[in-house]
């Protein structure tokens, strides 16, 4: 039912505003593989949003080339281009005077879909983002909670099934609990849809959680490091990236490792009284459980809830060492 993502390439893209000494975005080249979620992370004002907005030409690049699926973006009519790129902004931007249905139907209407097709699509999308169509279709944005509005915003961006999505701090304005929930749902959704997504945030933890790759951007959108979260955590390219990763890089890295990945689980013996962890949870959760229970080991349960083995502090520390040395060899 849905179109998968396509590759996006930025080639020496520069944005120079008139009467400014320095370009806002200076000579950026990035290759974003099809179907991946790439996070642009960097401090406020580093040009990450500007870089993203050049892809749907809300901001026109001064020089350089951008292609989406091999097609030169600058050769396309901007409005036509934008109907093929999902766009989600931090303020969500739902039109307050339109129902949920009309909000989602904006791009399909621009594309001239017939009424029946729009109705079907709206319901399908509402279900996709976990909102009951019959309950939510005719509501106005002000009748929705922040999290629900954000879901509708995502549904609206997905309306015409674009291969590419641009998301500008979409979860930035939500409370931590809602944000965590939205992030998890969004990851589940992306697993299914495999769109090519560019996601802008200044929150490095969010980048680690969501990104297939992370582009750490410095002033003028200079790419300080462009790699997988695991490798950025294990081997930051320079002091700038290290500063951005912040403290507790190892702990953050544990968050990327599933307990189920641990090989050679110790034999089960005398496990009574030990805390348990599900195999799909990550090593960070496992460590947390151990620390809270005051034990040095934890029992790993499989999907059915049956014990599979035991892991301890040493296993987790070893896993981390292995990962670091593996990344070191690759680099």
């Amino acid at each position, binding site marked *: 039912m849905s179109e998968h993502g396509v590759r996006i390439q930025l080639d020496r893209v520069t944005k120079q505003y008139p009467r400014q000494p320095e370009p806002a975005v200076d000579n950026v080249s990035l290759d974003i593989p099809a179907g991946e979620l790439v996070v642009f992370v960097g401090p406020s004002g580093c040009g990450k949003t500007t870089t993203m907005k050049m892809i749907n030409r809300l901001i026109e690049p001064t020089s350089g080339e951008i292609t989406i699926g091999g097609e030169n973006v600058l050769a396309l009519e901007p409005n036509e281009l934008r109907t093929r790129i999902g766009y989600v902004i931090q303020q969500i931007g739902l*039109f307050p005077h339109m129902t949920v249905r009309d909000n989602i139907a904006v791009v399909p209407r621009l594309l001239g879909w017939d009424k029946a097709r729009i109705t079907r699509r709206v319901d399908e999308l509402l279900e996709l983002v976990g909102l009951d169509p019959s309950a939510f279709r005719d509501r106005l944005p002000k009748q929705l909670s922040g999290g629900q509005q954000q879901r509708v915003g995502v549904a609206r961006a997905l309306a015409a099934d674009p291969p590419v999505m641009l998301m500008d701090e979409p979860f930035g304005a939500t409370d931590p609990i809602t944000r965590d929930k939205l992030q998890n749902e969004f990851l589940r959704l992306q697993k299914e849809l495999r769109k090519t997504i560019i996601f802008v945030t200044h929150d490095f933890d969010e980048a680690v959680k969501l990104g297939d790759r992370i582009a750490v951007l410095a002033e003028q959108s200079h790419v300080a490091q462009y790699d997988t979260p695991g490798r950025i955590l294990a081997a930051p390219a320079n002091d700038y990236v290290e500063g951005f990763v912040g403290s507790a890089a190892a702990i953050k890295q544990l968050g990327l490792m599933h307990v189920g990945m641990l090989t050679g689980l110790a034999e089960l013996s005398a496990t009574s009284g030990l805390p348990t962890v599900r195999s799909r949870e990550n090593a960070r959760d496992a460590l947390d459980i151990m620390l809270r229970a005051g034990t040095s080991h934890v029992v790993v349960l499989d999907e059915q809830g049956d014990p599979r083995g035991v892991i301890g502090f040493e296993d987790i520390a070893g896993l981390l060492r292995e990962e670091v040395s593996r990344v070191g060899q690759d680099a």
Partner: protein
Amino acid sequence: MSVKTLDTAYQVTPSRWSRRNLTVPIGLIAAVAVLWLWVSSLNLDSIEARVLNAEAVRRAVVDHILLAVSATLLVVAIAVPLGIMLTRRWAKPLVPVVMALANIGQAVPALGLLVLLALWFGIGFKIALIALVVTAVLPVLRNTVVGIQQVDQSLVEAARGMGMRASRILRLVELPLAVPVMLAGLRTTIVIAVGVATVATFVNAGGLGDIIVAGIKLQRTPVLITGGVLTAVIALGLDWLGGLAERLLRPKGV
């Protein structure tokens, strides 16, 4: 570029529909009834009787409403497109110029303007209409500009990001969301038009000014009061209709 450069917009008063809204028309009808009873209870002298005969009063009221409503419609026809134009990016430099002109239009005494126009162009309904439009154009113009400018820019950006053209954004996003502010301006324009239409009498354009001026000149209090009360009733009545329109046309969800 903001509301500040344009001073503040005329107040938007959001209020919900309720039975209370009928108190205004009922009150106005009662005021007219009391006026009528009071005037008929008086022993009018021949001068008063001539000015206050039913036919003369009816014509003055009709002329007055006609003048005020025509002026308001003309203001809308001029100020709404002009206001929309001023919010387009290319017209930015024009905003202070046009606003200054409209401000002058409102600040200049209507009577003085009317006299000047009459000296240049003669007298009659059209001249009164022009003076009224000049005097009453500012509220609609300013509120159209402010109404569109106050639309949350993130909504405009979301619309652009989805591939909507400027004309479509204007029609589907900016104008619907500007409607409440624009209608508030319209109400102010109506009230100004009804009030200022009283000076139309000086260019022989009829209206309740005829009755008021006759009352002053001939020192006949009942005549003066009749003209004044009827003018106020028309102003409040049209303002009430404007308020009704505001409630009915306000987009849901705003």
